[in-house]
Structures are given as structure tokens and as C-alpha cells.
């Protein structure tokens, strides 16, 4: 599709603009210009028919509107034509801690489908590390770290594009706040991502969410009425499948009502790089490595040991037992033995 030219946008019929760039309908709607009833007019004609008071009331000017429309169309065309940057690896190059001491590692590369945990006390610098990744730091943040994507200096778009962000976040404190049913909500998210095959992708997300929580929900349920486990399951499935961000940061996931192992498997099966900030031993050991943060800097990077791997197997068994007790309590049963 040809790029729009501002002058041309002013003189061709609004109907022609919409035929050429169907996605522009949203732009007209959100900016308060009724496109449907003015298809036969050009923008020049439309703006000459509306009176000054209306323009003043709605705070619209032709110059501003057309300029923004041109920008919107240009960006959307490049977004639609772009198959998206495939992120295969993320590399962190060292900077320094809070008091300026250099970080003690040469470089850290995390590949897609990999899980890495981040440990360290509150205030030690976990958020700053995440922010460095999100901003694709180039020795220009307070830590002096640099980030490489696919072993190269990252594109500026990761900083300034509104539709492509490097990092998606899932945290304990997050809630759904929209007044929508599960189906409407997913529909809206898919629409904002310009997904054409919405029906299938929505079904896939619902299937996966049900698989994670084990408590099946109806797609007509308001998202604000889902149980804690169901909400978390839906957030994770949606982020895995619909979010454009290649890196997922998880800030703890509560144990209740969700299969965390399956959740992580889902995320990495969608080609994501997963970072988990946690002190929960099961989650922390699910990655193969962990980053230890101290005093604002990365102090070390630890590989899981054989001892830790066997500890993980043991605590997973304990966890299953606790989950099964929980299930029995929920079903109104007596607890007799731990099996």
C-alpha cells in the first residue's frame, strides 16, 4: 500500500480513505469525526461544512487532524507490513552497582524459551535491571549497563513505539479493572493488536487458561468476577499468546489455584524469554540459572547444582501434596492422610 500524502488525504473522499486504509475507521471514530455519514465528502469539504462553533467545542482543526491521520496511517502501514522483530536472545553487558563498583560478570545471554530467575532483597535493584532491559539501555542509564538484542545494538523502536515493547509484566498485584466479559475482553485485546484470526486465537487463550487453573470458566463471565486462580490463569495465557512483547517478567506467582509449572511451560512454548523475580524455591529453581542482585548490581549468576535439582524434585512432590489437601478442603471432604 502506498504511503499517504497529507495533501491527497485532504482532497480524496473520506470513503476512499477508508477503502484504501480500512484501519483508519478507528482513528475517525476516536477523534469524533463521523466517517460513515460523510463518505461522499473529502476532508476539505467536510471541514468546510461544519461550523466554527462545533470545531471550537470539539477542539478539532483540519490541520491537526490531517497531520495526525497521516502519521497514524504511516505507522499502521509499517506495523502491518512488519512481521515483527524476532527476538532470539537478550544479552546484558555489565555496568556498576549503586556505589559505582563494577559488576562482576562479562556478559549474560538469555535465549528464547529460557527461564532465568532473579533473586535479591527488596530495594536491591531488581526493578532497575528490568527497566534497563525495557529501555534497551545503551550505557545511558544510572547503572551503565547495555542491552543487546540478537547480539546487536537494539532498534530505537523498543524505546518509543507504543505497540512494540520489549517487556510484558505479570505481577501479584495486578487486577482486571475493565467492565467486560472474558470474551469481550479478549476480543478487545486482539483487536488492538490488529489480529485477523481473532476467533481461533481467543479459543486458544481460553483453552490454555482453563488448562492452567483447572477451574473452567464461562466466556460470558465478567473478568472482574473471576477467582484469583482464574484471573492469573487468564492473564498468563493472554500474555503468552496475545502480547507482542518477547520478554516476560514475572514478579512472583501465587501458588493458589494455578499450575505454575504449566504456566511457565506455556510461556516458553510461545517463544518468550522469561524472567522471574521470586524467592519461592520452586519458582526460583525452575530456571536453569539465577541472577543474584545486591546493592544495585548483579553480584553473580548461579547455575543450578545437582543438589538443587534434586531438592526441586522433592519440593515439587511436597507442593503436589499441599495442592491435593487444598482440593479436598475445597470439595468439602475430610482430610485423612497425606498421600
Amino acid at each position, binding site marked *: 500500500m502506498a504511503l499517504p500524502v497529507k495533501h491527497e488525504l485532504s482532497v480524496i473522499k473520506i470513503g476512499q480513505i477508508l477503502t484504501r486504509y480500512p484501519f483508519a475507521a*478507528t*482513528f475517525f*471514530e*476516536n*477523534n*469524533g469525526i463521523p466517517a460513515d455519514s460523510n463518505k461522499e465528502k473529502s476532508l476539505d469539504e467536510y471541514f468546510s461544512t461544519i461550523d466554527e462553533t462545533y470545531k*471550537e*467545542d*470539539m*477542539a478539532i*482543526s483540519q490541520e*491537526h487532524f490531517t*497531520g*495526525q491521520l497521516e*502519521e*497514524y496511517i504511516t*505507522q499502521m502501514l509499517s506495523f502491518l507490513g512488519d512481521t515483527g522483530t524476532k527476538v532470539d536472545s537478550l544479552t546484558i553487558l555489565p555496568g556498576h552497582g549503586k556505589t559505582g563498583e563494577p559488576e562482576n560478570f562479562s556478559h549474560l545471554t538469555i535465549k528464547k524459551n529460557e527461564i532465568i530467575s532473579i533473586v535479591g532483597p527488596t530495594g536491591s535493584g531488581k*526493578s532497575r535491571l*528490568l*527497566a534497563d532491559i525495557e*529501555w534497551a539501555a545503551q550505557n*545511558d*542509564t*544510572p547503572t551503565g549497563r547495555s542491552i543487546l538484542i540478537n547480539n546487536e545494538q537494539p532498534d530505537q523502536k523498543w*524505546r*518509543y513505539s*507504543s*505497540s512494540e515493547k520489549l517487556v*510484558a*509484566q*505479570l*505481577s501479584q*498485584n*495486578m*487486577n*482486571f*479493572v*475493565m467492565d467486560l466479559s472474558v470474551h469481550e*475482553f479478549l476480543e*478487545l*485485546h486482539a483487536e*488492538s*493488536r490488529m489480529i485477523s484470526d481473532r476467533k481461533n486465537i481467543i479459543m486458544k487463550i481460553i483453552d490454555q487458561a482453563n488448562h492452567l487453573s483447572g477451574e473452567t470458566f464461562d466466556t460470558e463471565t465478567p473478568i472482574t468476577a473471576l477467582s484469583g486462580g482464574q484471573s492469573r490463569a487468564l*492473564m498468563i495465557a*493472554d*500474555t503468552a499468546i*496475545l*502480547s*507482542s512483547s518477547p520478554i516476560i517478567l514475572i514478579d512472583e506467582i501465587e501458588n493458589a489455584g494455578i499450575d505454575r509449572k504449566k504456566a511457565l511451560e506455556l510461556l516458553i512454548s510461545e517463544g518468550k524469554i522469561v524472567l522471574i523475580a521470586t524467592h519461592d524455591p520452586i519458582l526460583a529453581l525452575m530456571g536453569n540459572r539465577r541472577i543474584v542482585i545486591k546493592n544495585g548490581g548483579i553480584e553473580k549468576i548461579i547455575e543450578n547444582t545437582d543438589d538443587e535439582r534434586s531438592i526441586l524434585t522433592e519440593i515439587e512432590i511436597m507442593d503436589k501434596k499441599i495442592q491435593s489437601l487444598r482440593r479436598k478442603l475445597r470439595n468439602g471432604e475430610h482430610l485423612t492422610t497425606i498421600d
Partner: protein
Amino acid sequence: MNLVTVSGPPSVGKTSVILKTIISLKSRGLKVGVVKFDCLYTDDDVLYEKAGIEVRKGLSGGLCPDHYFVSNIEEVVDWGLGKDFDLLISESAGLCNRCSPYINGINAICVIDNLSGIGTPKKIGPMLKSADIVVITKGDIVSQAEREVFASRVHSVNPKAVILHVNGLTGQGSFELSTLLYKENDHITSLKGKTLRFSMPAALCSYCLGETRIGESYQMGNVRKIDLGKN
């Protein structure tokens, strides 16, 4: 001196965002001052003072806050120049959705929050649609999907703006914002000759002048009637 105008609906976290951002600006050795515009009351000036930032406040009282802002911004700039600031930040609440506080050629930031509902970007006029930078707050308490949808709605009404997510509590994103606020060659020495990006909401009727009685015979000047249809 650079000038930045920050605006946004009440309670979105403008002051928190500015306070966190100034920390990064100060660590670059920049001298920053703030002028806070509000309507009836504000104690945000105390917050700025506590953080060691020079601040002045202006309360519009019974006047339209937008009109009050534009009638005073020139004096505010003179004050900032006298204080030898590198960067002067004006903070004002957009109290109606038609607020239009931005000046051509002066960096304009609109702050809105994720909790305000996805219909909100469409409802806010020039304050959002003609901003250079849109800061979205309170992203830590809503889902990833809602953040993405909200940002895409903002983008669809203002595609030219840079959209940043800032957490006013932890300061996440504030360093990044600070890198966009000060430019070596964006200095101003006066606002003379500059214009507003949009005309401000108009008002001039008998109620502007203190009329309190209700009834058609007391209404004079710029009065408009609601259309309720026919019975």
C-alpha cells in the same frame, strides 16, 4: 532555561511522576523549579519543598483554571529565569476534558492513568490529543492486556506522541522520562509571540460575573441551551 508543561486529570499522579523524574534530572546536575497550578487547594508545594525543589503555587479559585494558567505563564517564566533554573516545570490539572493548556514550541506532557477506563482517551480533548509525550501511570495494578489496550487507545487519538509508562510509587520509567525533558538547545528567554496549540474553552455569561439566581431572565452573554428533544 527549558520549559515543560505537564497536565492531566486530577489524581492521576502528576506530582509523583514529576518528583521521581526530578531525582534523575538533579543527578545530572540540572537546577529544576516547579510551578503548581490548581483550583481551590493544593499542598503539593509542600511535597516539592520537602524534596528540596523550589516551587510556587497558583490557585485559580473562581476562575477557569485554564484561563488562569495562560494569563500567568509569562510571569512564571520570568520567575524561573530570575531563579536561573535549567528546567522549569509547570504542573496543572486538567479539570475539564476540553482543557487546552499547551503552547506551540514548548514541550507538552499529558499524564493519564490506566484506571480511568478505555473510553477515556477518546473523551479528552487537546490536553491529550496535542501532547508531545503521554505518560501512563498505575500500570502496576492492572493486567498486561489492559495496559496494551489502553496504550493503543491513546495511540489512536495521538499517534505522534511518545507514550511512556511510569510508576509514580516506585519511579519505574521516570529515569526514561527524564531523558526527554531537557534539551541543550531548547532554551527560551520569553514566551512573547508564542501561541496556544488550541483555543481554550470559552466562557462569558452572567454566571461568570457572579450571578447566582437561576432563570432565563438572568442569563446573558455566551449562553447555550441543552437539546432535550420534543415531548
